[in-house]
């Protein structure tokens, strides 16, 4: 699908947002209190009594083709936004400062590197590549967080990269996870080298409707479990009828990739006997809130905070970055509770539950990322 085939996104989500000007759908306090309320509701066994369909009659839908289509549509939209912000500058078609910074909340680690590769811009992913790329006219460093660990003796590669970037004469775009950037902000080099950073804009219900509808297309009708209405249906004025996408935009903190994962997680179809065979119909609801276990709560929270800063890593590497000798089983406990993915000893953040992770860390007073 080319950009000309796609429905145009609303103006406010077509270009990058300067850091500090991200339009959060809900304030930090509202988000944390909302999460607390959801947890209380869960604890009292709260369900949707007035739902349009009995959730017992639904079974979770897992469709690889549909998931791939949604992710592809989203990836294309994000690449368009990156094109708008950086492509002309990277090709030296337009003037601008030599080093630029792109900060993003936890997401698919390959978005920026895929974009650079498709636009034929060299990518620096290891310190060893520095020498070969020192003369490249433009360069993308997609994951700055991979070059350091939050330990005194694990910062050297990062400063080596900073030295090389300072000496680089071409244009350099540095991508960094927002939690890592919050940690790195305390080092003067970051402010001095890059200046004002940018991030993806917050996607509201309208923008999500366009992206998700492009991904799902005519493959299925998607209805809200709560209201029974199609989530993409619009009234005479073109406004969305159903509140699901508004709730999804708020629940996902305006991050479209989180919204997509939440949608996929909450997608279900009616069991065989209840299915209307004439139409492919999917039902969606927001996933239930996750809670950090109350036992060893601090160990869980420090582990999550460390994971957000450093990005996906091996268990043994992350364990070295925790404040105390790690409790055995903390990662498998987090995996059981839906906060992390654990595959082949590699831990990564479960993006669909990222808003819950952020709320839990906020309630415990941790330093949150800033967009």
């Amino acid at each position: 699908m080319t950009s000309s085939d796609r429905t145009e996104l609303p103006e406010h989500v077509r270009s990058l947002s300067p850091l500090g000007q991200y339009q959060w759908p809900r304030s930090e306090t509202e988000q944390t209190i909302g999460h607390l309320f959801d947890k209380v509701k869960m604890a009292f066994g709260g369900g949707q009594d007035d739902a349009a369909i009995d959730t017992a009659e639904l079974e979770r839908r897992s469709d690889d083709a549909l998931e791939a289509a949604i992710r592809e549509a989203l990836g294309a939209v994000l690449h368009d936004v990156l094109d708008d912000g950086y492509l002309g500058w990277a090709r030296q078609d337009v003037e601008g400062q030599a080093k630029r910074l792109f900060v993003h909340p936890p997401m698919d680690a390959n978005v920026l590197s895929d974009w650079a590769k498709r636009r034929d811009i060299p990518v620096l992913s290891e310190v060893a590549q520095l020498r070969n790329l020192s003369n490249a006219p433009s360069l993308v460093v997609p994951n700055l967080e991979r070059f350091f660990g939050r330990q005194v003796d694990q910062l050297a590669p990062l400063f080596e990269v900073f030295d090389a970037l300072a000496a680089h004469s071409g244009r350099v775009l540095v991508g960094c996870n927002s939690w890592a950037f919050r940690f790195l902000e305390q080092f003067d080099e970051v402010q001095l080298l890059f200046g004002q950073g940018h991030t993806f804009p917050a996607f509201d219900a309208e923008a999500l409707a366009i992206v998700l509808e492009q991904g799902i297309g005519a493959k299925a009708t998607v209805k809200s479990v709560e209201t029974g209405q199609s989530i993409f249906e619009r009234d005479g004025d073109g406004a969305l009828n159903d509140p699901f996408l508004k709730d999804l935009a708020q629940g996902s903190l305006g991050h479209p990739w989180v919204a997509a994962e939440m949608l996929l997680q909450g997608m279900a179809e009616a069991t065989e006997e209840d299915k209307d065979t004439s139409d492919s119909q999917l039902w969606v609801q927001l996933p239930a809130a996750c809670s950090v276990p109350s036992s060893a709560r601090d160990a869980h929270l420090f582990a999550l905070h460390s994971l957000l800063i450093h990005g996906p890593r091996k268990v043994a590497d992350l364990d070295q970055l925790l404040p105390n000798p790690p409790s055995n089983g903390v990662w498998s406990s987090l995996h059981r509770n839906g906060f992390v993915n654990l595959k082949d000893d590699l831990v990564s953040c479960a993006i669909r539950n990222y808003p819950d992770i952020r709320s839990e860390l906020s309630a415990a007073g941790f330093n949150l990322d800033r967009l």
Partner: protein
Amino acid sequence: MEDRVQRVSNLFNDINGWVIAEIILSVVLVWAFIKFTQKFLPWISEFLPAKLRHLTLNSVPVLRVLALLLLVVWIVPLIFNITLQNFVFIAGALSVAVGFAVKDLATSVIAGFVALFEKPYRLGDWIKIGDDYGEVVTIGMRAVQIRTPDDNVVTIAHDRIWTENVLNANDGFGTLMCVATFYVAHNQDTSAVAALLRTVGKTSPYLNLDRSVIVVAENTAFCMVYKLKAYPFEPRNQFAFITDMTERGNAALRAAGVCDASVPDDLITESARS
């Protein structure tokens, strides 16, 4: 004589069974409300972001005073016939009674009332009064209770604020300064040691990233003393934070080949040698 009896009886309203029931009910309701706020608000505040947590905790003593004031305003007209003359008479009698009988209690209660507005301490603050240091866990009408790092609860009458300095480490904010001290031999590279210790502070998982990390070096007769000063994101982590900075600071200094301070040989007495 009859006139005096008449004047005293004019002070009071007719008190029947309904009035007594109303007074008892009011007292019970206010007591229940105070107990509820004292239990529920601190519990709910544990789940809230730091800013909101302090606001919630600070509302507990304010709500208690408001409830008690409401109770007084509600009950007094039920018992007394309030006129200016009666008010002066009752206030005078009350002052004499309080002055002689419960002076210390009254002083503490008044100090507690002043503390509500002056705010030398709030719930959740880490304070030191005399030799006692700890987190404020209860602010009552007469006294404040603090929980020390050794998990003892110390009850301190409010009237100590009249005579003693109150040291408040966080003063209503969500963080407080922690200091880890290092003793390093002379003739080491001061700026390199300071930079290393600063990095130790900056890489602590307990660090509050909104505050600076500072290293202060001081010459003493036998060694250089470095004080690594930083703020944890949660005041309750202060001891874990200091321990973390100390452990990792010592390890970093050792790894960098920095020599520890040692006591000069000529200061070690013969008895210590043996």
